[in-house]
């Protein structure tokens, strides 16, 4: 989108080639628009299909025609319980949390310019999980509001610590950042594990959610939290994406183009952490979603628009994994995070084998 207008700078004598170049640019742009539209349509179809699968498979005797009204809260009894109380919050939580994870991952990957530097790898999800689990166990009454706030606080602490500890000689080395993040996330995971082995209520579902990530325990309160979070994070991401596009050219050039680089960097770090933390506060640290979504989005539509497209990609991954986690033969039911890790870790290995550096 930031292609410079060549016509304005070209001298008159060179007008003909410049016009030809401009025409070519317009053609490229049109093709890119077409591709984006196509990708968006395909993703929309995929999301609808997964959502339908999540709501319709294995209905326990509720007629399929009842599902849509029940999903809107218009039925009572079994249909209401199964669809409106259980499946709708779970499905919506999977979609919204996936979108937030995808957004967070793409923001970090684009800022740090390394596909490995996502909130789940550098420990930010683990920090958020530790914060939310603390509220859950120490102040369960304040849980609905307290968990997201504590998760965001935990993630901000982790961002600050990771940045400060990987700061050396006036700059942050990407791989040092990743190593420090891995170390700090080990502490957070140890702390969360400790909380749950100590807790009186050794509830399996809850422990699953905070250590591996699961949509199993999502309720309507959680969906409200996620929807509010996404509604706040998306516009900010759109706004910051302009700065990110400029910063992709290098800090000096970005400064020349009028971007205030350091405030923008801090804003992106905090926004990504907050998005990952909000998702984590409801469904737990579902791993590898933010790692996979960004590169898939880049592959689909190119780096510039990838940040926003990573949201629906992440949503599709989590809802798809959730349907598999609930209904796949032999293995189901398992926590959603298990499946995303089994899908994502091989990709991670491929990533460090093939192209450790310089993605997006």
């Amino acid at each position, binding site marked *: 989108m930031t292609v410079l207008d060549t016509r304005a700078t070209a001298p008159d004598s060179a007008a003909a080639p410049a016009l030809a170049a401009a025409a070519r640019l317009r053609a490229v742009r049109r093709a890119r628009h077409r591709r984006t539209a196509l990708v968006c349509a395909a993703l929309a179809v995929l999301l609808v299909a997964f959502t339908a699968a999540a709501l319709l498979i294995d209905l326990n005797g509720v007629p399929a025609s009842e599902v849509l009204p029940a999903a809107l809260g218009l039925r009572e009894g079994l249909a209401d319980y199964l669809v409106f109380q259980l499946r709708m919050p779970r499905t919506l939580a999977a979609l919204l949390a996936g979108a937030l994870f995808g957004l967070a991952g793409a923001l970090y990957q684009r800022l740090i310019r390394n596909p490995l530097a996502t909130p789940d*790898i550098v420990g930010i999800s683990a920090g958020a999980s530790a914060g939310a689990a603390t509220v859950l166990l120490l102040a369960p009454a304040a849980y609905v509001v307290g968990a997201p706030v504590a998760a965001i606080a935990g993630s901000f602490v982790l961002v600050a610590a990771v940045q400060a500890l990987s700061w050396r*000689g006036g700059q942050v080395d990407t*791989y040092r950042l990743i190593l420090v993040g891995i170390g700090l996330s080990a502490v957070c995971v140890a702390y969360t594990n400790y909380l749950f082995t100590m807790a009186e209520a050794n509830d399996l579902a809850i422990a699953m959610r905070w250590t591996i990530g699961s949509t199993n325990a999502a309720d309507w309160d959680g969906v409200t939290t996620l929807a509010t979070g996404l509604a706040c994070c998306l516009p900010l991401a759109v706004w910051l994406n302009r700065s990110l596009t400029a910063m992709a050219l290098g800090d000096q050039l970005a400064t020349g183009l009028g971007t205030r680089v350091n405030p923008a960097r801090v804003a992106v770090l905090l926004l990504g952490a907050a998005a990952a933390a909000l998702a984590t506060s409801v469904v737990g640290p579902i791993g590898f979603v933010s790692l996979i979504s960004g590169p898939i989005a880049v592959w689909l539509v190119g780096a510039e628009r990838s940040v926003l497209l990573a949201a629906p990609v992440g949503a599709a991954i989590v809802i798809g994994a959730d349907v598999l986690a609930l209904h796949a033969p032999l293995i189901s039911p398992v926590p959603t995070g298990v499946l995303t890790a089994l899908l994502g*870790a091989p990709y991670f290995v491929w990533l460090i084998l*093939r192209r450790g550096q310089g993605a997006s």
Partner: protein
Amino acid sequence: MTDTSPPVTSAPPLARTRSSRGATVAVLALAALAATLVAGIALGARDISAGEVVRVLLHPGGETFNSHVLWTDRIPRTFLGLLVGAALGASGLIMQALTMNPLSDPGILGVEQGASLFVVLGILFLGVTGVQGYFWLALAGSACAAALVYLIGTRTNTGSTTIGLVLAGVAMGAVMSSLITLLVVRDRVAFAHLRAWSVGQLTGRSEALGQILPFAIAGLLLALTLGRTLNVLGLGDEAARGLGVKVERARLTAAAVAVLLCAAATAAIGPVAFVGLVGAHVARMLVGADHRWSLPVAMATGAVLLTVSDTAGRLILDHGEIQVGVMTAVVGTPFFVWLARRRDLVRV
């Protein structure tokens, strides 16, 4: 182990440790071990006075509750901690020497997770019970995991193999712990049991001491013979070959010992990260890079670290205790971060 190479006649090239310093450190290490042993036995959630402890120790077989606590819980627990800590310290040092990677640790590289996965498979599908059965499964699992992580980690494109190995370890660790969850999540009893085990703890594992003792002792003795081999391997493959060492064979032997030690430790108390990392680095700070000295010292530092962490975990809370795996993560992470910040680590 079986060092078939002709004896190296010249002075070992990395012998930076003067024996006087080595002797001082050895005395200090023994003193620290003794202090740890005393602390592990004397301190705990139940206040038992020093005089009472001595009295119970002098008169084994007493019927009092204090006697029961000491003989069936604290004493075996302390010795198990020392044994497992020594195994992890030696395993970490050997792994660091073989991979030439200061961040190698059986926990960080996912080797312990591989051991855990195989133990879980054995419990669920082969009906294995008892720590000795766990050990053989853990051995197979850690060997597979170590080979896999090494193959991936040394082929990465991440600037240096140091980081590649850590990232490969993280990825494989995630896969294996996911598979463990996948296997046990529908079995409530197995899940509850494995949740406690998967954190890594010494609580209630006293019966493991007798069963794991032969394996751990064998591994530690084999490790003690590796010092010279590791020194020579540290010179680089060509120099080592020039000195008459069969490099691949020596490397494989050392790796096998490291895996054996890691398997014994994991089978006994579950995965505990960072003990090998910290133990090995502290040992090298104390006696330098000569592995003939640093291997026994790493055993001592690992043993002290694990047992002190466990004792501290028993004392911090008024009720209950903090598992040793959590304590070592809290102690080890600052160390890991400090290592990661070193300039020479990134982009070797």
